[in-house]
C-alpha cells in the first residue's frame, strides 16, 4: 500500500510541481496569497477560494475521468449542470421540500447521464457526438424549465447545501472532497477500476472476457451526470438562482482539460482521479491568479493558453522520456565514476 502510494505520488510529481509553481507565481503577484485566516466561523484566504471556486470543475473532472478512462468523453456536463440547477430552483420555488428537491435534482443528473450512456453503449454512437446532442439540447431544456429567466430562490437549506459553511469549510469544498473520496475508494477497493480500464483499452476484448461493458458504460456516464448535478446545485446555490444560460458554460472543456493535465490519456485506460483533481486545481489557480493580477481582461485567454501549453509540454511523454534519459545519464555517469559496475541487466543469464 505504502509502495503504491509512493509510486502514485511519483507519477503525479509533474502535476504537483506545476501546481506549486503556479501558486508561487500567484503569491508573487498578490502579496498575502498564502494567508489563511479564520473569522465569522469560516476560513478565509485565496487558497480556500481556489478550493471553493474550483469545486464545479473538480466535480465534473471526477466523472469525466471515469468517462475518459472508458475511451469516451462527455461534452454535455455543462448543459447538465444547467438542467440540474434549473430543476433544483424550480422544485424548491414551487414548494417541494429540500430532501425531495435534492433527490429529484440528482435523479435528473443521473437520467441525463444514462441517456448519454445508452447512446454510447446501445446505439454505438461515438461519445463525442452522443454527448454533443445533449450539450446542444440541454441548455434549451434548462431554459424551458426556467423559461429563460434567472430563477431565484431563497431557501436557506438549498443555499446551505450549495454554498454554506461546514466546520469552517465551504460546502463546495466539502462536497467535492467527499465525492472524490467516495468515488476513488469505490473504484479502487472494488474491481470497478480495473474493469473500467479494461473497457477503455479494448472494449471488445473486455466484452469477450465477460466484462459487462454496457452496464459499466451506463454507470460511468450516469456518475458523470450525477457529478454534474451536484456541480449544478452548487453553481445555483452560489448565486441563489438558476441561470440556465450561463451555468456551467464551457465548463466541460475545463473539466476535460483538468483530466488531461492530471496525466490521464484521452485514449482511455489507466486513470487517476487524484491527478484530475490536481489538474482542476491547477486550472482554478490559473483563473484566480489572472483575476488577482489585475491585467486587463483581453489578456486572460492568452495567459491561460500559454501556461497550459507550458504544463502540457513539460509533462508530455516525449519530454518526460527526455528528462528521464538525461537523469539516467547523469546518475549512471556518477555510478560508473563511483565503482565501474556493469549495468545489472547485461550480466544476467
Amino acid at each position, binding site marked *: 500500500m505504502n509502495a503504491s502510494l509512493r509510486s502514485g505520488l511519483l507519477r503525479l510529481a509533474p502535476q504537483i510541481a506545476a501546481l506549486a509553481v503556479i501558486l508561487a507565481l500567484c503569491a508573487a503577484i498578490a502579496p498575502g496569497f498564502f494567508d489563511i485566516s479564520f473569522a465569522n466561523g469560516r476560513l478565509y484566504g485565496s487558497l480556500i477560494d481556489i478550493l471553493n471556486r474550483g469545486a464545479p470543475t473538480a466535480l465534473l473532472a471526477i466523472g469525466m475521468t471515469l468517462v475518459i478512462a472508458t475511451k469516451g*468523453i462527455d461534452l454535455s456536463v455543462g448543459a447538465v449542470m444547467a438542467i440540474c440547477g434549473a430543476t433544483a430552483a424550480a422544485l424548491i420555488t414551487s414548494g417541494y421540500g429540500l430532501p425531495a428537491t435534492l433527490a429529484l435534482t440528482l435523479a435528473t443528473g443521473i437520467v441525463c447521464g444514462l441517456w448519454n450512456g445508452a447512446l454510447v453503449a446501445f*446505439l*454505438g*454512437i*461515438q461519445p*463525442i*457526438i452522443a454527448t*454533443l*446532442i*445533449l*450539450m*446542444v*439540447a*440541454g*441548455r*434549451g*431544456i*434548462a*431554459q*424551458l424549465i426556467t423559461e*429563460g429567466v434567472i430563477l431565484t430562490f431563497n431557501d436557506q437549506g438549498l443555499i446551505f447545501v450549495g454554498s454554506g459553511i461546514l466546520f469552517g469549510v465551504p460546502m463546495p469544498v466539502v462536497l467535492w472532497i467527499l465525492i472524490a473520496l467516495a468515488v476513488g475508494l469505490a473504484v479502487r477497493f472494488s474491481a470497478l477500476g480495473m474493469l473500467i480500464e479494461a473497457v477503455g483499452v479494448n472494449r471488445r476484448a473486455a466484452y469477450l472476457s465477460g466484462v459487462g461493458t454496457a452496464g459499466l458504460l451506463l454507470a460511468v456516464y450516469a456518475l458523470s451526470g450525477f457529478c454534474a448535478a451536484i456541480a449544478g446545485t452548487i453553481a445555483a446555490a452560489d448565486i441563489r438562482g438558476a441561470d*440556465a444560460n450561463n451555468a456551467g458554460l464551457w465548463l466541460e*472543456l475545463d473539466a*476535460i*482539460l483538468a483530466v*488531461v493535465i492530471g496525466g490521464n*490519456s*484521452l*485514449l482511455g485506460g489507466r486513470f487517476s482521479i487524484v491527478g484530475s483533481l490536481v489538474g482542476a486545481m491547477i486550472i482554478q489557480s490559473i483563473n484566480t491568479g489572472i483575476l488577482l493580477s489585475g491585467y486587463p*481582461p*483581453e*489578456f*486572460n*485567454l*492568452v*495567459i*491561460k*493558453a*500559454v501556461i*497550459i*501549453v507550458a504544463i*502540457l*509540454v513539460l509533462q*508530455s*511523454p*516525449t*519530454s518526460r522520456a527526455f528528462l528521464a534519459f538525461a537523469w539516467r545519464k547523469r546518475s549512471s555517469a556518477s555510478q560508473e565514476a563511483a565503482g565501474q559496475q556493469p549495468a545489472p541487466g547485461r550480466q544476467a543469464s
Partner: protein
Amino acid sequence: MIGSRYLPLLTTLAIFILAYALCIAQFPNMLSTRVLGNLLTDNAFLGIAAVGMTFVILSGGIDLSIGSVIAFCGVFLAVGMGEWGIPPVLAIVLLLVIVTAFGATMGAMIHYLAMPAFIVTLAGMFFARGMAFLLSTASVPINAPLYDTLQSLYFRMPGGGRLTFIGMVMLAVFIGGMILAHRTRFGRNVYAIGGNVQSAELMGVPVAATTIGIYALSSFLAGISGIVFSIYTSAGYSLAAVGVELDAIAAVVIGGTILTGGSGFVAGTFLGILVMGLIQTYIVFDGTLSSWWTKIVIGLLLFSFIVLQRGLVWFTERRANAAAAAHA
C-alpha cells in the same frame, strides 16, 4: 461490396433529399433558388472550415481551434488593412502564412510531443481568440475596395437566388479537398494514419510530415474561411464564430465520416453542411420556436438524423449479409 463503402454517404444523401422534400411540402417557398443560393452563401465559411476538419478527423484527430482562428483572421484583416494600412492582398497573404504556421506548430506538438490533439487544439483555441482580443476587442469594419468588388461578384439565378463569390469559393475548396483526399499521396497518407498510426508507420508513411501537414491544412482552410467570413460580414470581430468547430465536427460526422478516423469522404461533409443548413432554414421558416425550443429541436433533429443514419446502415448491411447467405 463497393456499395458498403459508400453506404453512409448514400444514406446521408437519401435522408437529405427526403428531409428537403418534407420541408417543401410544408413550406413551398423553400423550393426556390433563393433558398439554395442562401444555403451555399450562408454556409460558405463553415463549409470551408469543415473541409479542413474532415482531413483532421480522417486522420483520427480533432481541431478545436478553427472557430478562434476564423475570428482572429477577421480581426487581423480589419486591423491590418485599416489601422496598419497593409494593402489587402498582402494582408491576406501574410495572414495565410501566419495561420498555416500556427497549424503546423500545433501539428508538430501533437506529433513530436505525443500530446492529444484535443488538448493541443484546445489551447490553440484559447490562444487564437486571445490574440484576436489583443488586436482589438471592438468589432472593426473593413472598408477595402477589394471587398466591395468581391461582395458584388455573383451570378443571379432564375428566381432571384444568388450564387455568390464566397459560395463559389466554398465549392472550389470542396472540389480541391476531394482531389487532395482521394487523388494525392498526401490524401492516402491521411487515411492511412487514421486507420492505424503504427501500421502506417511500419508501411513507410511519413507520419510526422503528414500530421504537421494535416493541421497546417486545417488552419490554412480556417484562414480561408476567416477571409470568407470577413467578406461575408465586411468586418472583423474577436467574438465571431464561437463554437464553429462543433458545427464543423457535426457536419463532418453527419456526412458519414467516422470520428476515430480512416473512413469517410469530403463529399459527405458537403452533404453534412447542407443538412445542417436545412435544419436552420427550416427552423427560421417555421418561426414559432422560442429560444429554448430552438436548441432542443436542433438537438433532436441531430439525434434523429444520427440514429436514422445508423439504423439505415445497419439495416442495409444486414440485408446484404442475408442476401450473401441466400446466394451461398
